[in-house]
């Protein structure tokens, strides 16, 4: 473990900026938390329907995406270490790997959703209207939770791309990396949410 002797120069900027990011992350937690709450109540109410509908989801795809996000969480944490050790090239490389893993996640999601659509399992479809009420609720929550999460993956990807270019142009350095740090926090949040989505939607039937 090493320490950065220049950190005190950006003390106020960095600490308040980071706290602001955490406050924003709290609002994100409650945004998803509301959906988890609806899921919990509806699961209690429609246990049999939820069981049946959850069998439609592919646990293997869910597990692959879990591994991709856990890996990307590590690479983004490593990139933050690298920038503080003045290894800009390594930091850029690690963010690039993070973006590739985000790509793997989104491609998987594309095929997963595509498969559901080919089976006409989407909100408002004719097939969906014939399903029991609890199954409609399950698929509604499935599309809402994974969709909102995928939007966060995209936003996180855009933020990390910006960070990568800023490191390249020297705007993010070993003594000035608040945006890098906050974008990494956002990316970890994306991972955190998925850690709960995966067992709740894909594993438990």
């Amino acid at each position, binding site marked *: 473990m090493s320490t950065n002797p220049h950190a*005190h120069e950006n003390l106020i900027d960095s600490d308040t900026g980071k706290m602001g990011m955490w406050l924003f992350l709290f609002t994100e937690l409650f945004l998803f938390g509301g959906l988890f709450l609806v899921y919990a109540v509806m699961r209690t109410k429609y246990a049999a329907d939820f069981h049946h509908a959850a069998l439609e989801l592919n646990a293997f795809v869910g597990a692959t995406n879990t591994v991709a996000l*856990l890996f990307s969480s590590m690479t983004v944490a490593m990139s933050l270490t690298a920038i*503080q050790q003045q290894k800009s090239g390594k930091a850029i490389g690690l963010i690039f790997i993070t973006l590739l893993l985000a790509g793997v996640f989104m491609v998987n999601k594309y095929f997963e959703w595509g498969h559901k659509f080919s089976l006409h399992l989407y909100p408002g479809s004719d097939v969906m209207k014939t399903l029991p009420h609890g199954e409609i609720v399950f698929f509604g929550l499935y599309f809402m939770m994974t969709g909102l999460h995928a939007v966060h993956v995209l936003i996180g990807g855009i933020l990390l791309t910006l960070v990568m270019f800023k490191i390249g142009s020297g705007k993010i350095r070993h003594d000035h990396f608040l945006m890098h740090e906050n974008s990494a926090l956002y990316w970890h949040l994306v991972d955190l949410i998925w850690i709960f989505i995966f067992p709740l939607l894909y594993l438990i039937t």
Partner: protein
Amino acid sequence: MKNHTHAVSTDRANWTVLLILLLLTTLSVLAIKLQVGAFTVALALLLASVKVTIVLTYFMHLKFEQTILRVMVGGVFLLFAIVIGITFIDYLFR
């Protein structure tokens, strides 16, 4: 006053954290596939909570942060637990 310099976690430490997270993921998949009794759901949620705590502590560096931030994060999760608890009390005993 706490030292405000940034602590840096090593690559080796990050790999260790990742391996533990992957191990816990494998465990939860196995637990559900093998259907370990009536507590399967509780076990899956417990394992997810452990994983989230590890990500918060190591990847999100809460271990190295000021106490106030750790208290805030803990408080938010406690608040969410209370919200879930109260909702279910209302729902089950209405």
